[in-house]
């Protein structure tokens, strides 16, 4: 006798059971159908009517509270619905929220870090300036704020030099104007700090604010000298404004603190004057070429028209002489006796420093020093 396979038996049994016709099967399958039928006839347990009706009543009461209509998918669950009744996947919601927050946070961090090397005209440049504004607001005293603003001015100057070296001539003037604004603001804040020190406490006064301005002026002089060689014509006025700013704050620093090492900005004026002479497009430039007294010449030179400047027009003369800040001048006799010092050799010391700061692979503007 050939025994049929298990799948065939299973199908035969199910067909016989489902159809209710056990006559189609014989032997063991027929017996098994009978056993299944016995099971059905024997399993007659039913819940009590009392239990059934009581449970139904209880469920109806709960259903009135638990079941809520969903007319639209976007409907918010009513407040009266008890929270533990139908959990709304709070863990999943929190997970989604945390994921969104993490992605947004990582994206923001990445964007901010990417904006560190942005230059005017880049999409992320406003982010960079915004971050700088936040950083400025985080400084707690005027000394650190003034120092930070001078650092920002250095950054603007580095940007201007990068733009100049990469042929972005149209944006150099705006970068130089920003440099002038931030140099003005930072130095004014440091001068104010220095004057406050003089008037309030002689014992704790320090020349650090003036030294910071002098160092900044010396470094800016070097950079501006280098830029004056091949500056585009429409940035000449901005260069002159920047030179006026640097010479003005250097002059004010030396008048406030005669004992401090003054910054050597004379070379800047010569270079700027030469640049203006050599630029045929620069209007009225030859008036600044007298050379024997460069500072005075720069102060008396009428500022050329600046049609391309994006910022508000500046008043050039107050930057040079006399100092525009309404801070009281410190009488020289109250401070240390004026000592004749050798003219500072800051140029020698700041050349590599500025070069390393603004250029090179690790500098603020990578690739700047490769020009």
């Amino acid at each position, binding site marked *: 006798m050939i025994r049929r396979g*298990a*799948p065939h*038996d*299973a*199908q035969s*049994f*199910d067909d016989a*059971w*489902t*159809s*209710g016709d056990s006559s189609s099967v014989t032997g063991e399958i027929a*017996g*098994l159908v*009978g*056993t*299944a039928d*016995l*099971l*059905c*006839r*024997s*399993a*007659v*347990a*039913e*819940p*009590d009517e009392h*239990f*059934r009706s009581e*449970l*139904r009543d*209880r*469920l*109806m009461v*709960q*259903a*009135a509270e*638990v*079941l*809520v*209509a*969903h007319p639209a998918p976007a409907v918010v669950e009513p407040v009266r619905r008890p929270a533990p*009744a*139908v959990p709304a996947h709070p863990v999943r919601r929190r997970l989604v929220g945390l994921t969104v927050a993490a992605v947004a946070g990582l994206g923001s961090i990445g964007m901010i870090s990417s904006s560190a090397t942005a230059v005017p005209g880049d999409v992320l440049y406003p982010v960079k300036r915004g971050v700088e504004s936040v950083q400025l607001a985080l400084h707690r005293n005027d000394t650190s704020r003034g120092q930070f603003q001078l650092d920002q001015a250095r950054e603007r100057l580095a940007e201007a030099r990068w733009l100049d070296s990469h042929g972005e001539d149209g944006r150099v003037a705006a970068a130089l104007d920003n440099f002038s604004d931030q140099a003005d603001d930072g130095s004014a804040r440091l001068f104010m700090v220095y004057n406050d020190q003089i008037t309030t406490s002689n014992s704790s006064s320090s020349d650090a604010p003036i030294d910071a301005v002098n160092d900044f002026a010396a470094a800016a002089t070097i950079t501006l000298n280098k830029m004056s060689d091949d500056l585009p014509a429409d940035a000449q006025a901005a260069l002159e404004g920047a030179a006026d700013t640097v010479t003005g704050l250097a002059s004010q620093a030396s008048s406030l603190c005669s004992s401090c090492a003054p910054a050597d900005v004379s070379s800047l004026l010569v270079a700027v004057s030469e640049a203006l002479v050599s630029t045929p497009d620069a209007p009225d430039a030859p008036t600044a070429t007298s050379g024997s007294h460069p500072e005075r010449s720069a102060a008396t030179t009428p500022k050329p028209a600046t049609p391309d400047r994006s910022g508000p027009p500046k008043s050039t003369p107050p930057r040079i002489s006399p100092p525009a800040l309404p801070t009281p001048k410190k009488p020289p006799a109250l401070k240390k006796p004026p000592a004749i010092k050798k003219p500072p050799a800051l140029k020698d010391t700041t050349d590599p420093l500025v070069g390393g700061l603004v250029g090179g692979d690790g500098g603020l503007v990578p690739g700047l020093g490769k020009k």
Partner: protein
Amino acid sequence: MTSLTSVLRAAIALHLTRPDEQSLAIALAVSEQTNAYSPHYDSTGSTGSTDHDPDPDPEATRLRALVDLAKDGDSEAFGQLYDHYVTGIFRFVFYRVGSKHLAEDLTSETFVRGLRSIQRFNWQGKDFGAWLTTIARNLITDHFKSSRSRLEFATETVPEGRSDEAGPEQEMLVHVSNEMLFEAVNALPPEQRDCILMRFIQGMSIAQTAAAIGRSEGAIKQLQLRAVRSLAGALPPDIR
């Protein structure tokens, strides 16, 4: 054409039981989407004879409409679902735990959980009766895990059966079968035991049993054959 007629008949039947316009509108909307429900499942009758119904579609469609109404906030629709499934769920639980009071407690908890979760229920892959049975199955497992109680059939708590038309001799036979049935069923391996309970005691279809246990329909057919063979071997020869 036959399918459309049966669907409309179910919609009208539902309307007669719940004579309000919203119920009828929803029922008719359900009837329009009946193809999307893929109503190939047999109905889940509590009498154990559902597989013999020649045309199970009207009942299945009515149950699906009731589930949709309940999901939409209709508590009376859930009440009708309860009326339809309570005997099957109770029977499944009772022949697993052997105690009427425990079976009532677990049946109550099954429907309470079903009520609280019905608005998350979807038709993908599982019939509503199979879904309720899965809840009951998990509750039984949790009960035995937590209490470590021993399976023991309590003869004094045998529920009353459908013995109205049975004579005293047949009633005696059924009573004996209840006790033997409990012991024989619970001596089976877990999957065979649940298959026997769902198919022949609760009255679920092959598809519903497959959905509740999580196996294919072919596997359930073989499982039920093995289970009935084992059960037949465990019952006294004069009874089977």
